[in-house]
């Protein structure tokens, strides 16, 4: 116990070297733990985003690409699926339900998703959980909107709030669908998926705001012509971005997929979400490994820096070690002293690193989620974090064997007098 106090005081006495050592270890551990957190966070986030649908159908493209833009709102769709094809494939006898997805507009940086009632009935996330309302009801009118939890929280919108949507993702003046304010009728509970950052409106509502743009300037004398004059039946869209399919029997998925992919009327792609996800992880896996290897190397560099500092300090500590020997310290105490100091420095560094990464996630996790749609586990240090701390401290202590052993050998040779 006294040796630990000595090791601590000795480290504190060389405060500059000690602080730098702790800092370099802390930063390297931050990197290692951070990479892992982002990795598992991203995987978990993707995996739990869509759990109920058997298939996802969109215009012909790569399956990963389709999954990314249709479900995760990453990137933009290239082409659409025609309404006729959608109707055809949703009325097949093996289909239980379909959810149309129409993207392309935004409000205040949040994506607007045009869909229909089935979205609230059949969309499942996480462990097959349905969407729940924190407040209000699903949309029924053309200009009704349902907000994801983050949208409502960050914009501070309540039920009854009116807003515009704009074309594209950037709020640019000329592309604003002005004069057609949408009205918030419902707010969803948080899901930890991109749903939280989505504004849901009906396909008819989406079509209504585009009527004006497609048909030229708004008609004279009408404040909200679309809202008043247009009936939902008139506001049928020509096309949608993609649609999710729930089948009556999972076994039919492969046949359905083949039928979509070989459909002659239109070039389309059907993907099974789970399969597309694992394809994506195969693509990303190599990069993940490389990233992990780099962060492990950085940790090793940090530990090597500590070893250098300890070895450099050995010469100036020779006298001090002779003093310890003279007052009755065992030569193995000398060894322990350096191993303890090494373990102490790495422990301080590793713990600081874990606190740092958790603090950073607490501070910026929301922004990461906002930008990449992947929720990163914020919930304090995980078992993995503690494992890393344990591993780094163990390696640090083992590295301390080297200066410890050198000091031990020297203390035996030096006896009571140090010849310098």
């Amino acid at each position, binding site marked *: 116990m006294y040796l630990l106090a000595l090791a601590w005081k000795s480290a504190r006495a060389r405060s500059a070297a000690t602080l730098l050592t702790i800092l370099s270890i802390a930063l390297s551990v931050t990197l290692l733990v951070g990479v892992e957190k982002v990795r598992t966070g991203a995987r978990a986030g993707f995996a739990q985003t869509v759990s109920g649908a058997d298939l996802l159908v969109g215009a012909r493209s790569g399956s990963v690409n389709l999954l990314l833009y249709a479900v995760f709102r990453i990137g933009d769709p290239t082409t659409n699926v025609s309404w006729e094809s959608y109707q055809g494939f949703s009325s097949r006898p093996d289909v239980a339900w379909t959810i149309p997805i129409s993207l392309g507009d935004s409000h205040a940086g949040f994506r607007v998703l045009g869909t229909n009632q089935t979205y609230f009935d059949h969309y499942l996330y996480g462990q097959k959980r349905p969407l729940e309302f924190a407040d209000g009801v699903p949309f029924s009118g053309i200009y009704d909107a349902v907000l994801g939890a983050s949208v409502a929280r960050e914009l501070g919108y309540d039920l009854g709030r009116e807003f515009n949507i704009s074309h594209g993702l950037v709020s640019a003046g000329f592309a604003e669908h002005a004069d057609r304010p949408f009205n918030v009728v419902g707010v969803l509970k948080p899901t930890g998926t991109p749903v939280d950052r989505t504004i849901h409106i009906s396909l008819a509502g989406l079509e209504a705001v585009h009527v004006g743009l497609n048909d030229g300037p708004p008609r004279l004398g009408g404040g909200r012509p679309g809202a008043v004059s247009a009936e939902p039946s008139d506001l049928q869209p020509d096309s949608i971005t993609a649609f999710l399919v729930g089948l009556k029997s999972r076994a039919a998925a492969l046949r359905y997929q083949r039928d979509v992919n070989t459909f002659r009327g239109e070039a389309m792609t059907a993907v099974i979400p789970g399969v597309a996800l694992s394809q994506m992880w195969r693509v990303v896996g190599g990069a993940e490994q490389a990233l992990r290897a780099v962060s492990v190397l950085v940790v090793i560099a940090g530990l090597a820096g500590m070893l250098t500092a300890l070895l450099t300090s050995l010469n100036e500590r020779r006298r001090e070690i002779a003093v*310890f020997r003279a*007052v009755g310290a065992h030569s193995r105490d000398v060894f322990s002293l350096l191993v303890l100091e090494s373990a102490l420095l790495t422990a301080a560094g590793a713990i600081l690193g874990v606190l740092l990464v958790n603090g950073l996630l607490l501070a910026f996790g929301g922004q990461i989620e906002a930008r990449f749609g992947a929720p990163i586990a914020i919930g304090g240090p995980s078992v993995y974090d503690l494992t890393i701390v344990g591993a780094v401290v163990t390696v640090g202590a083992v590295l301390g064997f080297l200066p410890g052993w050198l000091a031990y050998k020297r203390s035996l040779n030096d006896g009571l007098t140090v010849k310098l």
Partner: protein
Amino acid sequence: MDSNIGLTGTTRQVPCIAMKDVTFAFGARAPVLAVSDLTVAAGEKVFVHGPSGSGKSTLLGLIAGVLVPENGTVEVLGHPLADLSAPHRDRLRAEHFGVIFQQFNLVPYLDLVENVLLPCRFSAARAARVGESAKAREAKAREMLVRLGLAQEVANGQVASELSTGQQQRVAAARALIGTPSLIIADEPTSALDTDARAVFIETLLTEAKDASVVFVSHDLSLAGHFGCKISMPEINLAAQNGSISESAAPVRQVGSV
């Protein structure tokens, strides 16, 4: 050579140090030390002198149990050191020895009181002799430092590196003396001090040491007058005389009460 000052009847029974036919070499090289017979009685104050390289430091290392002889026996306080394990020798040192070096005696990151109490950290028996509680021991260490003329420095809470060499040597003396050790080993403790300070230091050390044996090593013969007994290293170290050990011409240097 009268060296009976301050000796009690009981401690006289066992000599403090008894070396017989001891040789020591660093590795496979020729022996640097060969002593056929050396005895220091309990409470005796011995002055060991000789030029550098005459084996003074090696002798101290052997007595302290930090170095292990190739041949012969070293008994300290009645314990044959060869029979003790290395940790046992370390404990003996912590419990019964006080050591003062030429300089750099102090651990720079500990304060003066902590430096003085270092032996207590490695021997519970010694700690118990100093005081029952940590508080009592600290008070004892302060008292010792004040007696050695460091009242101001203790009051200011100065650290080792802020002291002059002479002051540092006095802290080292306090550490060697704390907890009434049986043997004080001093390796040229005054060579970094000026002449006046030397005399004061030695007198203080010898007075405070009371019943303890003192082995004081120096190349400065002028200090010999403070001690009851004087040993010339070149005379007793056969290895330094011949470069090798000669079994015939082994002059016996019996030190102690005759």
